[in-house]
């Protein structure tokens, strides 16, 4: 799903994704402060481990993406976090690919970064219950955006790997629901137990 393997995308899409990813990771690293590093590492390892765990759904299989959660907690540091995790998954498990690394980083991290930037101030001000709701909706939205971007990457590349709308809906809809719950639960938990984790997102 979100981990597009090697040999599927066309060169312009790969280069475009790569350039955007390099810029975004550089931006994320530039803005990262000492106090951001531990939580970036924690979420990167969380994403790394959790998105390896997949469940079969119809012709495909789904796994968590955590884009919304990472975007809210990390801000732009989501790019280096996702970059490291995806690189390790590609090298260690052949999950995704090295040539598609850039595109995959953009597809997973960009929705998180954009939506995170919009809702993070709201989450900071809200009560835990409201924060959970906001984070849940944001997480589900991130999944949908990632799905659309994956579809766009494939559609721009070649007609051979045309996506089936039926399969996309069958796999992304349940994932949106699950991500919404996971994102909402995590944020409300953090909000109650360790609210300062959400304080300093740039």
């Amino acid at each position, binding site marked *: 799903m979100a981990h597009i393997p090697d040999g599927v995308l066309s060169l312009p899409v790969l280069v475009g994704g790569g350039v955007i990813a390099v810029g975004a990771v550089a931006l994320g690293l530039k803005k990262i402060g000492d106090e951001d590093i531990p939580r970036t590492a924690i979420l990167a390892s969380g994403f790394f*481990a959790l998105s390896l*765990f997949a469940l079969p759904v119809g*012709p495909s299989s789904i796994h968590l993406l955590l884009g919304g959660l990472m975007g809210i907690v990390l801000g732009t540091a989501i790019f280096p976090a996702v970059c490291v995790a995806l690189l390790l998954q590609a090298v260690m498990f052949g999950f995704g690919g090295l040539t598609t690394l850039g595109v995959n980083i953009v597809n997973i991290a960009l929705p998180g970064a954009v939506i995170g930037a919009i809702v993070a101030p709201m989450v900071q001000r809200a009560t835990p219950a409201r924060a959970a709701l906001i984070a849940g909706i944001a997480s589900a939205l991130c999944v949908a955006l990632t799905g659309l971007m994956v579809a766009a990457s494939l559609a721009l590349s070649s007609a051979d790997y045309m996506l089936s709308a039926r399969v996309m809906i069958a796999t992304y809809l349940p994932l949106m629901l699950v991500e919404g719950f996971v994102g909402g639960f995590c944020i409300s938990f953090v909000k109650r137990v360790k609210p300062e984790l959400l304080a300093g997102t740039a």
Partner: protein
Amino acid sequence: MKLWRALLPLFVLSLMVSGADAHRLKLFATLEDSTISGYAFFVGSGRAQDADLRITDANGKEVGALRTDAKGAYSWKAPSVQTYHLVANTGDGHVADTTIDAKRFAGLSANTPDTAEDDENAPAGSISAAQIERIVDAAVARQMRPLIEAYEAAEGRTRFNDIMGGIGMIIGLAGLSLWAQARRREKKP
């Protein structure tokens, strides 16, 4: 200290995840007689049902298009002896491919036609070399199949050690960047 408290749930989580698997799509194909059969599957997380499967010949010309069944399986009779390339596509960005080399059709490429009449005309009790080759091919294919299946399933499986290694790598990188930032701060004043 706080960092360790935060990492503990992650560690517990990774214990649960161990044995769970990545979801890379793979395509298993085996050749029996002139029928290419197998299934599309996600490493460790089930078969790919109703996935699109396209078969091209050595020249890249599409010679077959089918879909996998409810068990992710497919079966296709090759019309002639040549190298075939199979590509499975689940329709959401998962693609896997495999190749059946022309050399594996050995038993069939033997110039004896495999019609029933020939068998009847042959002297009773005698078996031609081509027939032996075909029988051996079928037997070997049957016996090898579970082995190849196990290998395909094992390859790419996520292991606990790998996951811990990856997490360790990320923690190491975090430590490295903290160290780099501390050095930068020391130099400044």
